[in-house]
Structures are given as structure tokens and as C-alpha cells.
């Protein structure tokens, strides 16, 4: 039987005046993920602990947290892989808080919606067959479609901290995902929503998003591509 010591940031805006850190010792056999540790605490030691969870297999994006000073998915983080000492668990910083480890994602999803994250086509297609797409064209989507909307990149971006209207890396990566899709024909429909004061020009290639992403995606690359498209349109009036 092993033991892990968790140090968890707690705050309930409804009843607490200031955040605090609570410490719990979690016994376990074999392996222990941070998410399993949180469940063990919630079930056995402190029923008031709050956190998000769902798939426990790193595909749903629910349990993004700040663990030992790094953005991680709690389900994908094994305690044995962390440096010895306390496991410090905090909510993703720079986001409004609902309670304990649960952040308010309202703005995050409003920005996602703002960039029109859906396939736009003005040309009709044969309802009885697929729109053809070559494997080469499809490969351009490989990186951005793996986004799980966990919010790590968004929370990590200094440009988001400084300007609350900035769309941030996740929404822009989603815009990129559609702009590079050979089937998308948005032309003027989506571009104004990232080629504006909320959009791509606020990315200063700090690349925190790349480091923060638990799926090892590269939002910066997508944003720079969008920036190129937007600048080309401004300079030459060209679309895509």
C-alpha cells in the first residue's frame, strides 16, 4: 500500500471569503491517477470536494486542471510520474471559478460559437454520396480535429489574460480546422470573425498554448496560418 499527499486549492465563492489549501493523504495500491485520488477524497474524506469528470481516458476534456504548476488532465496524470512530494491541485488559473476545481467555461464556449465552428458550403452537394476529399487534404485536419476543448491553452495564454475579448487559442484553432478543410467554402463568412480586434492579431506567438495542450496540439501554428490568410486578404484581396 502506497500513500499520496494531495494539496488541493479550495474555494466556494458562495460561502468562503478567501481560497485555502486542504491537505489529504490518499492510500492506494498499484497506480493512482490524480482523478482517482480526487474521487477517493470526495468519497472517503471530504464529500464537499468539487471537480469535473467524465471519460477518465483523456478524450472528453472535462478534468483539465493545474497540477504541480502545469496544465494537465487529471485522468491522464499518474501520481507516480510526478516529482516526489505533495500533489498540488488547483483549478485552471485566470478563469472565473464556480467552485474548488471547477472553472466557469461560459466565455470559452461563447468564443467557440463566435467563430462559427461548423462546415460552411454554398455549393449544393449530392445527398447520396460524400463530398470527395483526398487523403492529402484530409491530413491537413489531423492536428486541429483532435482538440478536446479542455481549455488548457485558453487558460495559459497571456494574451487572453490581458484582453478579455480575445478569442484565444482554442476557438482560433477551431476556425483553422474549418478554414483548411477542402470542403469548407466560407470565404467571407468566417474570416471577419477572426480578422478583427478580437482575433488573430492578438496572438504574439508566446506559444504557451503548445506547452499547455495535453493532446500535444499546436494552436499557435493554426493561428499563424489564419493570420497569413487574413493579411493576404488585406494586402491582395485574395481569399484562401
Amino acid at each position, binding site marked *: 500500500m502506497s500513500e499520496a499527499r494531495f494539496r488541493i486549492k479550495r474555494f*466556494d465563492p*458562495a*460561502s468562503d471569503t478567501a481560497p485555502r489549501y486542504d491537505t489529504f493523504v490518499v492510500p492506494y495500491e*498499484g*497506480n493512482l491517477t490524480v482523478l482517482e485520488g480526487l474521487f477517493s477524497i*470526495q*468519497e*472517503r474524506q*471530504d*464529500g*464537499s*470536494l*468539487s*471537480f*469535473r*469528470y*467524465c*471519460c*477518465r*481516458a*483523456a*478524450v*472528453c*476534456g*472535462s478534468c483539465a486542471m493545474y497540477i504541480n504548476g502545469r496544465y494537465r488532465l487529471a485522468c*491522464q496524470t499518474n501520481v507516480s510520474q510526478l516529482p516526489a512530494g505533495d500533489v498540488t491541485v488547483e483549478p485552471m488559473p485566470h478563469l472565473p471559478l*464556480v*467552485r*474548488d476545481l*471547477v472553472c*466557469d*467555461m461560459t466565455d470559452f*464556449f461563447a468564443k*467557440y*460559437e463566435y467563430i*462559427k*465552428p*461548423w*462546415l460552411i*458550403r454554398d455549393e449544393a*452537394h449530392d*445527398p*447520396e*454520396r*460524400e*463530398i*470527395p*476529399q*483526398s*487523403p492529402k487534404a*484530409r491530413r491537413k485536419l*489531423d492536428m486541429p*480535429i*483532435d482538440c*478536446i*476543448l479542455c481549455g488548457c491553452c485558453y487558460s495559459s495564454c497571456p494574451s487572453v489574460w490581458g484582453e478579455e475579448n480575445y478569442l484565444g487559442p482554442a476557438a482560433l484553432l477551431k476556425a483553422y480546422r*474549418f478554414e483548411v*478543410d477542402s*470542403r*469548407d467554402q466560407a470565404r467571407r463568412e468566417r474570416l471577419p470573425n477572426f480578422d478583427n480586434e478580437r482575433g488573430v492579431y492578438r496572438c504574439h506567438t508566446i506559444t504557451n498554448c503548445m506547452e499547455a495542450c495535453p493532446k500535444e496540439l499546436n494552436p499557435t501554428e493554426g493561428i499563424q496560418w489564419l493570420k497569413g490568410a487574413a493579411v493576404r486578404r488585406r494586402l491582395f484581396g485574395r481569399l484562401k
Partner: protein
Amino acid sequence: MIRHQLVVVGGGLAGLRAGVEAKGAGIDVAILSQVHPGRSHSGAAQGGINAALANNPEGHDDTPEKHAFDTVKGSDYLADQDAVYQMTQDAPPAIFEMEHWGCPFSRYDDGRIAQRPFGGAGFPRTCYGADKTGHYLLHTLVEQAYRRQVRIYMEQFVTSLIVVDGQCRGVVAYDMIRGGFEAFVADAVIIATGGAGRTYSNTTNAIISTGYGAAMAYHAGVPLKDMEFVQFHPTGLYTTNILMTEGCRGEGAYLINDLGERFMARYAPSVMELAPRDIAARSIWTEILEGRGIGGKDFVYLDLRHLGEQKIAEKLPGIRDLAIHFEGVDPVTDPVPIVPSQHYTMGGIDTDRDGVTRMPGLYAAGECACVSVHGANRLGGNSLLETIVFGRRAGKAVVEFLAGGGGGRAAPAAAAAVEALAAVQARVDRLSRTAAGENAYDIRAEMIDTMKLNFGIFREARQMQEGIDKLLSLKARLPGIGLRHAGGAFNLDMIRTIELEGMLDVALATAVGAFKRTESRGSHARTDYPNRDDEHWLEHTLALYRSDGPPELDVKPVALGMFEPQERKY
């Protein structure tokens, strides 16, 4: 009190597809989801979705009829053949629709959707996007829901139905962010809350797949059908039961025992690793029981090494990540330890092929429902298909129901809504007042182990009777539970305690169905009744909820007519 014409409970593929359909017809629809819909368990599906597109060069003779035959044979002839026929006919247009909405399927050189072989299928007909098909389909439908401005209430834990004069008129939900209860009054409700995998301790399912949605209908008097049929996926990771897609074997991976044998040669020599899931899972378990698990332990190997790094990177990148992160094994260089794991709930809320239940105004679609298209054993690639085909059909059925006056409802729902809200509040108050009560998680832990041990891959009367007794004794302990934490936002203690009450009843329905069905069929394998018994058991079971004991069991005929039941051999 919030009012909408239609409330959809659940924001996975089935719920979203239903919501999009109703919204498209001008219905005022709201989706209530326990998580952001993009986090639903549909997104964990990996290998693909079946449709007879005949895109694969080896599948150019494929047809919906052949898809229907494979599905019915796979179901061990328990599926309703008219419903299966409907699903396989609807499949190609459903796939094209998802593609037109942007789903990033993998492609052939000619630009068409790629298809891979899957278990129990005569042709390679499983359309896929690498090994993340569920994630891609789910995000595509979330995008379409946003595009159509479908109203989505996120992080709502729905606790109960509002019923007026035997008609479903809405739901009560706990708003996890605000931390209070609210009544949603509607003219129709669609339940699309997924499976009940978490009633087992060894499941591939997400933590929110508790079966609570099905339990709500069950508590309101709607029967659960065929709950004894529980699918064990052959290949869950050994230590976590996280899914390794059937696509691994579709792409050529081997199952290997301690002697280094491809042991499937003993059980399904003509299809080997691509045997249907019930057969593959039993074969693995037999190897383990006979001492040929790796090192004599309770796992075998899934070996992908011969596929090579490039093929794994292209076709199975997610599998590689999961094996590395969760099992510490890189499938490129090492075989992956796997064990059969609870994966899918074939049974569910009794519906017809339009999602209609016995209760007017109440519909169900997806894994929480039982149409039945999977019968005693679901084929891989048919569950994603079921969600979008029957999600759409349920949405459409509600549109017609509302156009026809919504069943001629007379009584106003407001009073019932207030009552339902008060009932939930009273239930929570009671839980909060039980000082130093029993810990709900002790009961949960005993329940999930009982399901694993007493209602697993192989079943037998004495063991199941013990299991039923155990579940009943756990149910008797429910009133003694006390909450550790009362009130407030995001109260996990309250949500998980309420869930437990539903889970235990769903588990009991599974247990009693399994005990009463004295035959072996599909996933239901009894060592004391090893043969299929078409004379007595070619019929669905219906579990009816009884608050004071185990469920009452009724039966319902299977829709036959296209394919005569035969002995099932592969």
C-alpha cells in the same frame, strides 16, 4: 419553471441528433446535459460506424440487406428484424449527412470515405476517422447544434420525470453551476442518456454512464427490455479497462495467450480475431480460466507489433497514446495486456423504431433505449449508427406527435411540476438529514463488484441468486444513506448518491433478467444452460419496476420474418 415544447435529456450523439431534427422542424427544443455535450461518452467511441457504402474494394458487393443479415446473426436472432432492416437502410444517408456536416472521416485515394473490417461483418463496412470516430462524429453534431442555435442547458443533472395523467410532461433537474433545482415543463421528452456500464466495476464506460436516465423511465413505469444482455468488449486495457478498439483487430492485430498461440483458431477458425464480441470475449476468458493467461494471470495480449509504426500512426494513433499513458506499454514495441471489459448495455428502455415508449410523450434513443437492433449481442460499429439513426427518428416522431396535438393532453402540467420539484427537494432533504448515515460509496463499491463477479461473462443460477440477494440487501440499505455535503453548486456527493438509487434498480433488472433467462444466447452465457433455446426464449424480456422488491418480468415477441434463426457459427 422553464417551458419548452421538447426537452431532450442527454447531449451525446443520439440526443444531439434528435435535437437537431426537432429544431429543423421549427420545434422549440432544449437539450439538458450533465456535461458540455462535446464531453459526452459518444466521443470515446473509436473504431467506426457501419454503413453498406461499398467503398472498400473488398466490399463492393455490400448492401443494406447484407448488413441487416450480419446484424441479426450477430444478435443471435434476438434483434427485431424490421428495426434492423430500417437501421441498415437508413445507414448510408445518415453517414453522408454527417460527412456533409463536416465529419472528418478517413479517406481512400479516390476521395471516398474509408471502411475497415470489423467483427461479425461479411464485408469491410465500418466507416472510420482514424481511431477517433466517436470524437469526430460528436464534435460534428455539437457544431451543427450550435449552428442551428439549439438551446443547450449544460451541466444539468436530470433527477426525475414530470408525469401528468400518465403522460410525460417534463423533467426536474439540478443546475450544477447555480446549485438549485428547476422544473422544465414540456410537451414531450426524449431520454438519450447512454448506457449503464458503471453498474459494473470493470467497464470501459465514462464515469457518467450510470444508466440513471433509463432508471428514471423505469421508475415512472416504463419497462426495461433485455437488460440481461451486457456486452463485454474483448479488449479493455488490463489495469483500467479503457477501450482498445476492435479496429486494432480490424487492422490485423492478434490475440495471444501465454503459450504465444493465436488462440482464436480454437474458437472461430474462419474469422479468427474478427469473431463477434461475445465470442471473442468468451474465448479470452476461457483461455484465462484454463490457465493460459499471460504468466497464469487474468489477461492476454493484444499484439499490434507486426502492423508496424507507420500503420499504427496512421490508423490507430489514439490507441497508441492510450496504451502508453494508461498501461505504460507502447504497442509499436510491446504487446498490450488486455482483458474483456463491460462495454455496452444492449438492453434499455423499451421503444419501437421511432423511439416511442409505453408512456405517451416519452421517447428514448441511443444506448439507453432498446429498439431492439442489437438483440443478444451488438456488432461493433452499430452503436454509433444506432445513435444517429434512432436519434433522428425519435426527433421526427416527436415532431409528428406535436403536430397531431401532442396526444390531446388536457391537464395543465404546472401543478405536477411543482409537485415533482417538491418531491426531489424532499428526497434531498431526507438524505441531508440522515446524520452519520451510511456512506453511499460503500454500497456503490459492493454493487459494482457484485455485478462483475455474479453477472459477468459466464453465469450460473446459484451464483446469480446470491447476486440478486446481495443487490436486494444493498437496496435495503439505501434509506440509511446520509449525505456528506448538503446544498450548493456542483454538489458531487448529492449527484452521485441520487445516481446510486437508479443504478441499483438498473442492476437488479439486469440480474433478474439474467437469472430468469434459462438459456445461452449472444452475450448471455450460462454454464448451467449452455444452449440457445428458441422454443422458450426467442423473446424479449421486460422488467417492470417494483419499489418493494425485485422487478416483475414479462416477455414480448421478437419481430422475425426476414431471416430464419439458424445455429450461429463463424
